[in-house]
């Protein structure tokens, strides 16, 4: 391939990527704007709260408790190399609240919720249920997207907070039961070390990741191709995009909260 063709291919790929970003950004703006404009669908919102929030608790809890426990073991083993085993409570707390809690909950939501939203909406699209909604005078963005995005915006920060607490509890359990830490001292060190900024950053990340997860599920579902293959591609694409965007947003938000 000659250099001009190569440059042409590169240009096409960049233009295609920018166009995709533009489509997602316009979709996201449209979705968010419908949250504030009637009609509202409280029943759909209630179902979304249940699916995204309540039913995600088991996977979030299990992920957090094992991560917190493993983190305590790692910090203890690593800290022992330079006689710093005592920092386990502080590092578990800061690690869970600032990074692992929001990121792991975000990724779990991407796996569980984004995939489910994308598959459901894509199936609705290929079976003409989205067209049926339109003919029944119901805007699909209002009926399908807005309730899910709002529910994710509200519930994922709560899930992150719960994940943070369970993760710290996992570290506490391992540290006090296996590593010989004093329970009262462990809790005091955890509470004393955490700052308001840590908790705020955790919750803001949760809200951002929730919105990303829901919007990616809805976007890929609505733009699904035909047939089972279309649904499969939409589901896979939504989880990949949500996971990458969550990690990128985490980097940006960490910079905003802790580099200023």
């Amino acid at each position: 391939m000659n250099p001009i063709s190569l440059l042409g291919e590169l240009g096409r790929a960049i233009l295609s990527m920018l166009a995709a970003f533009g489509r997602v950004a316009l979709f996201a703006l449209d979705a968010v704007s419908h949250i504030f404009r009637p009609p509202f669908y409280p029943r759909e919102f209630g179902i979304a709260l249940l699916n995204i929030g309540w039913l995600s608790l088991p996977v979030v809890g299990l992920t957090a408790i094992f991560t917190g426990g493993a983190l305590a073991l790692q910090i203890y083993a690593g800290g022992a190399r330079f006689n710093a085993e005592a920092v386990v409570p502080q590092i578990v707390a800061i690690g869970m609240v600032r990074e692992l809690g929001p990121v792991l909950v975000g990724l779990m939501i991407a796996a569980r919720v984004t995939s489910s939203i994308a598959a459901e909406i894509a199936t609705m699209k290929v079976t003409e249920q989205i067209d049926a909604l339109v003919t029944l005078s119901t805007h699909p963005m209002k009926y399908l997207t807005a309730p899910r995005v709002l529910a994710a915006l509200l519930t994922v920060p709560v899930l992150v907070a719960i994940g943070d607490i369970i993760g710290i509890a996992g570290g506490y359990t391992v540290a006090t039961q296996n590593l010989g830490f004093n329970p009262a001292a462990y809790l005091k060190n955890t509470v004393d070390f955490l700052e308001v900024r840590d908790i705020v950053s955790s919750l803001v990340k949760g809200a951002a990741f929730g919105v990303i997860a829901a919007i990616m599920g809805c976007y890929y579902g609505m733009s699904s191709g035909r047939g089972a293959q279309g649904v499969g591609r939409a589901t896979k694409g939504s989880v990949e995009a949500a996971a990458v965007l969550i990690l990128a947003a985490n980097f940006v938000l960490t910079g905003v909260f802790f580099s200023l």
Partner: protein
Amino acid sequence: MIRMENVHKAFDDNHVLQGMNLEIPKGTSMVIIGGSGTGKSVALKCILGLIKPDSGMIYVDGKDAQKGDRDAFLARFGMLFQGAALFDSLPVWQNVAFRLLRGSLKRPVEEAREIAIEKLRRVGLKSNVADRLPAELSGGMQKRVGLARAIAAEPEIIFFDEPTTGLDPIMSGVINDLIREIVTEMGATAMTITHDMSSVRAIADNVAMLHGGVIQWTGPVGQMDASGDPYVEQFISGSAEGPIEAVR
């Protein structure tokens, strides 16, 4: 009255509609026939605004279908989709009463449920079906529920997209008879797309043959067999020989 004037629609290189003209007088039943992939569904979706035509005009009662209050426009239509397109997560009665539970036609829940059960009876389904989920019903029952949903808000215009596809001949006959009865008793304007000739004879007042992106022939159903149009004749006979290529 519905009027399509010189409507064009292409998907990339595939020019589906290439200047389609069609007129459906008020209170009549028009059936559009044509092979698979000839753009019958596209034409129907263009009228509803589900697909935007590339060019051409569509009028409903003399008004541009692409302008004006969209909710008020759609409230005049009912549609039976090919696969029924019932909402999986809602029980049958909420599917039927979907339009009556929200939006400008909203009614109290009890009243909406009563209307839904009445419409289910009208299409030959018992009230015990009302609380079942669509996935628990057979294909024929789903079509009937879709029909009940299409007529629930007493629309002036009803569209039927391949109403008998996938059904056995007896159930096809039942659905055809139901459509004819309902359209007659409601005085609605109906547009049906199909390639099932038994549906055409049961449902149609007028027939239009769509091929090559344009209407090749249109006229009363009684004149269809003697139309003299080679496309219509080949379609009715089901012959592989004729102006319509068998391999598309």
